């Protein structure tokens, strides 16, 4: 009896000692977003585990070791910071009080290669962000196309925020939150202006587009109230604002909507007082034919009977003519076109018979087999003589500007063309693959079709195509900037993380290429699920 007791006691003690709990992080799976790039690093943001795995890919020695950074709860999306390749922005929704974990505010985390450099926290659970072109500011709002993803009982779709990314977080100051006044609409998108000379001061604006209204927010004086300008009353219904252009030196904002025949010009002039802002907006409407589909601004140098000044060139949906609008006089000059384009790509380049770089435009329509070159300077005077048609071998579905002298046309089905904007010639490149995912980077055009094992690249100097076969099928790809060793990273299907690193300059140099497999379980024994 005593022996049995002794034995049972021993077992009981052992079981009591051995009753451990596994780290819950070891139970949770991965949910990786598309890969992102930092200077010399590739970043994999894991929504499920709220971590970022950062791996150096441009070092002289290959490594499979990942630095794991803890993110604020619920990462929603990420984007490299414009003009700052060493920073990645991650918008996180935060955590509501679910009775299990501590609630946490929403946040934007700024990642650097080795750390989370700063976290801007705010109470509103925004689901979209847009950067200014210089990467200085970040605008947060509720994207009406995905508000079903917003958690919580209530949210105000007109609440927005601006973060000064050059400044550290400061409660109540950075980010600056605001509820935009509106006429019933909700923000659809936002556009940042370049510095504009308004009321004697160079300042930057955020233009928030509602369906038929806009809000003008002076970012130089962010504490001042915004102007919300109603445009719809001047038309018969929704405008569906879709395009904004800024006048540059002149304090004008040009607006186009897909459901309006008018171009709206908002002039911002010095205020006579009586407002908190030192400028006031005024609206002008310009007729642009039926259904303007795209517009560009250019500076007419003038000559002959044509006065110099700012011009707006507009193409309309289904119309074989373009319109040049002089904002100063509201005069409209129509230019006959050989086809009916609906998109304009502005570029400054010379041409064979006139090597001097001038303001020109490429007109196109996705789905068409033709493009039209337009020399914008003197267009009102010379009309159709400034227009040149170029037929292609097959219809294209996407146009990508690679430089001021080179445009990529991705054809429907298979193949692509490189359009030399100076020579006005086309270099066809055949392919057996769907080329919808072409990525220009490191002086090459990279083609990494998903579910294929081959990756193609086209030298944009010599137009020489080449390809290599990888060891696994392609899932996604990202170009990694680096001054010394630019890379192109291709991910593969895997449950523990698998990608291949190619030399950005010499992709077919296998001595410089390598794969990394298992980075998601890096150090899993020592660090647990992290």
């Amino acid at each position, binding site marked *: 009896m005593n022996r049995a007791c002794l034995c049972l006691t021993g077992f009981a003690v052992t079981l009591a000692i051995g009753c451990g709990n596994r780290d819950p992080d070891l139970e949770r799976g991965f949910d990786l977003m598309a890969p992102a790039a930092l200077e010399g690093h590739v970043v994999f943001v894991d929504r499920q585990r709220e971590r970022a795995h950062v791996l150096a890919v441009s070092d002289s020695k290959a490594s499979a070791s*990942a630095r794991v950074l803890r993110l604020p709860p619920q990462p929603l999306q990420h984007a490299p910071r414009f003009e700052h390749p060493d920073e990645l922005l991650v918008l996180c929704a935060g955590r509501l009080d679910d009775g299990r974990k501590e609630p946490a505010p929403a946040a934007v985390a700024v990642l650097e290669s080795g750390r989370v450099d700063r976290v801007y926290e705010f109470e509103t659970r925004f689901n979209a962000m847009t950067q200014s072109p210089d990467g200085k500011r970040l605008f947060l709002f509720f994207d009406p196309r995905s508000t079903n993803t917003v958690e919580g009982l209530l949210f105000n779709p007109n609440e927005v925020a601006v973060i000064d990314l050059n400044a550290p977080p400061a409660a109540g100051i950075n980010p600056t939150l605001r509820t935009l006044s509106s006429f019933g609409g909700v923000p659809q998108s936002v556009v940042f202006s370049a510095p504009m000379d308004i009321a004697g001061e160079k300042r930057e604006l955020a233009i928030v587009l509602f369906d038929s209204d806009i809000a003008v927010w002076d970012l130089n004086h962010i504490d001042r109230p915004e102007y919300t300008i109603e445009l719809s009353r001047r038309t018969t219904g929704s405008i569906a604002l879709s395009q904004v252009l800024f006048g540059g030196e002149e304090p004008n904002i040009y607006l186009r909507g897909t459901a309006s025949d008018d171009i709206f010009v908002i002039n911002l002039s010095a205020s006579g007082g009586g407002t908190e802002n030192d400028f006031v907006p005024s609206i002008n409407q310009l007729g642009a034919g039926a259904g303007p589909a795209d517009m560009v601004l250019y500076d007419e140098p003038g000559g002959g009977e044509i006065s110099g000044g700012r011009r707006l060139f507009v193409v309309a949906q289904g119309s074989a003519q373009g319109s040049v609008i002089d904002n100063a006089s509201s005069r409209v000059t129509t230019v006959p076109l050989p086809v009916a384009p609906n998109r304009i790509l502005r570029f400054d380049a010379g041409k064979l018979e006139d090597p001097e770089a001038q303001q020109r435009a490429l007109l196109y329509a996705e789905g068409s087999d033709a493009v039209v070159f337009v020399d914008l300077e003197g267009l009102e005077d010379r009309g159709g003589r400034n227009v040149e048609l170029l037929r292609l071998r097959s219809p294209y579905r996407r146009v990508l500007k690679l430089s001021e002298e080179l445009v990529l046309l991705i054809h429907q089905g298979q193949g692509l063309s490189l359009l030399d904007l100076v020579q006005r010639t086309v270099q066809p490149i055949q392919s057996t693959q769907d080329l919808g995912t072409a990525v220009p980077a490191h002086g090459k055009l990279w083609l990494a079709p998903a579910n294929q094992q081959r990756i193609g690249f086209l030298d944009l100097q010599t137009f020489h195509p080449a390809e290599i076969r990888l060891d696994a099928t392609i899932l996604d790809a990202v170009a990694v900037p680096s001054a010394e060793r630019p890379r192109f990273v291709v991910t593969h299907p895997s449950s523990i993380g698998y990608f291949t690193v190619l030399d950005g300059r010499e992709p077919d140099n296998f001595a410089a290429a390598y794969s990394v497999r298992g980075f998601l379980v890096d*150090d899993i024994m020592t660090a647990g699920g992290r």
Partner: protein
Amino acid sequence: MKRSLLSLLLVVIPVPALAQQPMATRDAALDPRIETPSAAVATGPVTQHWQASLNLDVLIRKDSSFDVLSDEDLEPALGASIGYAFWLTEALSLAPELGYAGSHTEGGVLLGGAIEQTELTSYAGYAGVSARYEIWEVFAPHARLAAGVARTEFTLDTQVDGTFEKADWLPFVTLGLGATVTTPDRLFQSRSGKFESLSVGLTLEGGYWASPALTATLESRSEGRLTIEQPSLGALSRSGPYLRFALVARL
């Protein structure tokens, strides 16, 4: 029937008592079924040189690295050992021993299914020495020191990427203190005096198992052209306390 009853009586009733019965008229010396007083067995202390045991070693893995293999902190190992006491006094004995212990642990699904299973298999052989001090006839505490090497194999099955394996030889040292409760001497002694020194018992021992960690790097069989960089999974601690439960036979 009568013969069966007689046999039972022979077992139950001491032989000298039976000899005093007036009914015992048969010549016991001529009947091999009847043990005579001249075959009386020896009494007193016995000498036990050999010891064999079947062991259940429960290794207690409190280190978080073991979470990859189990949601409990126990790694059971079954084994056997045999020892011979080459030096004996009335109470103290020193016995070298040889032993073997094998364990197999399987972890379930990890990381939401990214890892379908982990396995750790260990085959350990060791040699050691134990010092036993017999306090009472049925109770003897002991100390045991052993050293050996374990073939340790770690396997990781993934959902998509196949199976990764890592195997290594890991030396180890164990030091334990315990006690054994045995049957009294001569319990199994036969009438002919055989098995006089046999005793069986239970051992409970606690101690520490010290070993270098198993450092596992994913090693896959690359069939492609590119070199594959694979991260370290980290260090799987192989040290920790243990409890030994053993069935012991001494002879």
